[in-house]
């Protein structure tokens, strides 16, 4: 089938998926078949886009999904709502901030989750590079792995550290990752 036609078909599945999920999540009770149909349509749309134009097709179809959802939100935003008394929003994390946090240095938390975690992430990325080279991978892939790993590893590690209640756990994770990755620094010159 023509790639252009496949892209249009992918867009139709994407729009259908969003519409079905809108219907499903708007029901009072959960509907597994509708949920599956919605997610299924989105997946089919992405698969068709991939077949039509690879990563470019997927990127464009994801934009279609997002734009369709924003259009649905625009409709929701215009709907009148019950004007009950003004009250605090009911959310799952309501009152989270009312819990007095454990008293600890913000500067030290910043240092651990910021520069220390970034350093550990860089060491981790360099360890991945060494492993790729050991495994016979291309030097270009190994180097790109470093550039791509740091922006993923650091924010995930920083978030995980901020979730930890004990300072000792934070240091253990940061220093543990750094210690495990540091030996791979000796193998950075290795190319296969």
């Amino acid at each position, binding site marked *: 089938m023509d790639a252009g036609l496949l892209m249009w078909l992918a867009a139709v599945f994407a729009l259908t998926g969003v519409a079905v*999920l809108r219907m499903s999540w708007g029901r009072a009770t959960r509907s597994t078949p509708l949920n599956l149909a919605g997610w299924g349509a989105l997946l089919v749309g992405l698969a068709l886009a991939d077949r039509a134009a690879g990563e*470019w097709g997927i990127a464009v179809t994801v*934009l279609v999904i997002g734009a369709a959802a924003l259009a649905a939100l625009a409709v929701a935003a215009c709907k009148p*709502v019950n004007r009950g008394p*003004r009250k605090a929003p009911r959310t799952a*994390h309501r009152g989270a901030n009312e819990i007095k946090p454990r008293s600890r240095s913000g500067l030290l938390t910043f240092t651990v989750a910021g520069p220390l975690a970034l350093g550990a992430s860089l060491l981790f990325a360099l360890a991945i590079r060494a492993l790729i080279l050991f495994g016979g991978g291309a030097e270009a892939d190994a180097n*790109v792995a470093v550039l*791509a790993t*740091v922006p993923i590893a650091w924010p995930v590690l920083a978030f995980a550290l901020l979730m930890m209640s004990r300072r000792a756990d934070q240091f253990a994770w940061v220093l543990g990752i750094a210690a495990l990755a540091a030996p791979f620094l000796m193998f950075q010159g290795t190319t296969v």
Partner: protein
Amino acid sequence: MSFAFAKETVRKAISAHSALGLVCCALLYLICVTGTAIVLYEEWQRFEQLDAPEMSQIEPAAVQRAIENVLESESDGPSTTHLYVHLPTADLPRTTITTDTQAVHVDAQGEVVAPEENAWAEFLLALHYRLNLPALYGMTLVGLFGAMIVALAVSGVVAHPRIFRDAFRLRARRADDVATMDWHNRLAVWTLPFALAISLTGAMIGLFYVSGGGLAAAGYGGDSEAALAPIFGDEPEGDSSPAGIPNAAPALAFMEREYPEVEPYYVILHDPGTAGQHMQIIAEHPRRLIFGEYYAFDAAGDFHGTVGLADGTVGQQLSASTYNLHFGNYGGLPVKIAYILFGIALSVVVATGTFIWLDKRERRGKASTRLRAAWWGLVAGVPAALVLTLVARLVLGNTAPFVAIFWIACVLAVLLPVIAAQRSLSGQSNREVAASAGMRGIEAS
């Protein structure tokens, strides 16, 4: 559908989310707003200089004439190390030549017509790319904030157990705290793929001085170019002895003949006029995310191969895809409009995130009048300051001091509402004191 995170995990996640958001909110908002505006980089350039010559294509011989004309105009000055010819594209249908010292538009015959005047677009790009700071510090800072969007996205997902169930619930017309929360959560959910794509690519670009510097230090004796050579190719050994001007015409003709499916948009001359000179043509591959492929030529225009950005290793292709995926220039105007829409949504997510924190603070009985005034000032001030710089471009011209105008306007936009709020609080306090004194006087009498 809901994720089964434990209540305690959700509470910790929202605390982490709040902490990250508060640390980052101001510059993150600025980066999101400027990133939204810079999606139209090419269109802004056209807007800035409406009378520049435009063309849908240019003949290879005219390109060569233009190169010779520009190099001739610099013959009595220092030799340029690089010369870039921007070929007409659908987004920017102009032929522009840039050297180390100048940038000029040429017409379809290769004659130099006028200097390029796009200082505002360049200012906007520099503001988004490096906050108008030196590249090392500015790009790194922006990269760090890009990574923080990733952290905020992950923590936001963990902190939101009803992420799918509520995905279409937007009670905007309540116009209260609930509405603010809905705006934040709903837009964040539906911009999540976009936010992850632009933050990861942005962080990858911005954190190069950290990750690429670390890579270079660990594996290449500190040589960053050597670290990038396996990905983007290396520069041949130079030879500064004099030579004739390279001939781009046969190279462009070769591209037309051998690669008709790709669209050349840049000719790069390295060390023109020296024996070590060589050429590269960057060509866009339709329906690909890569910014293009490098086609190498010698000074006579003979083809020497490609780097492999289009068909090389996965890493090369991934690396070449970061720029287009980040800036949204891979699908013409429709994709740009989508990026602007999502960029605005992401800016709203950042803005409402801080308002949610302020709302919570006030519910706990902590007055936030000045903080709220400052945040409102920033939220309205950043786009207003951008508009002000654009007005300055139109009124004062290409040499207007955009950086000073923008940052002074931003500072004022934050300070003035705070001062106004302070005065309002003082007036309120005075009235309360006066009322209290009046009551005491009545009681005494």
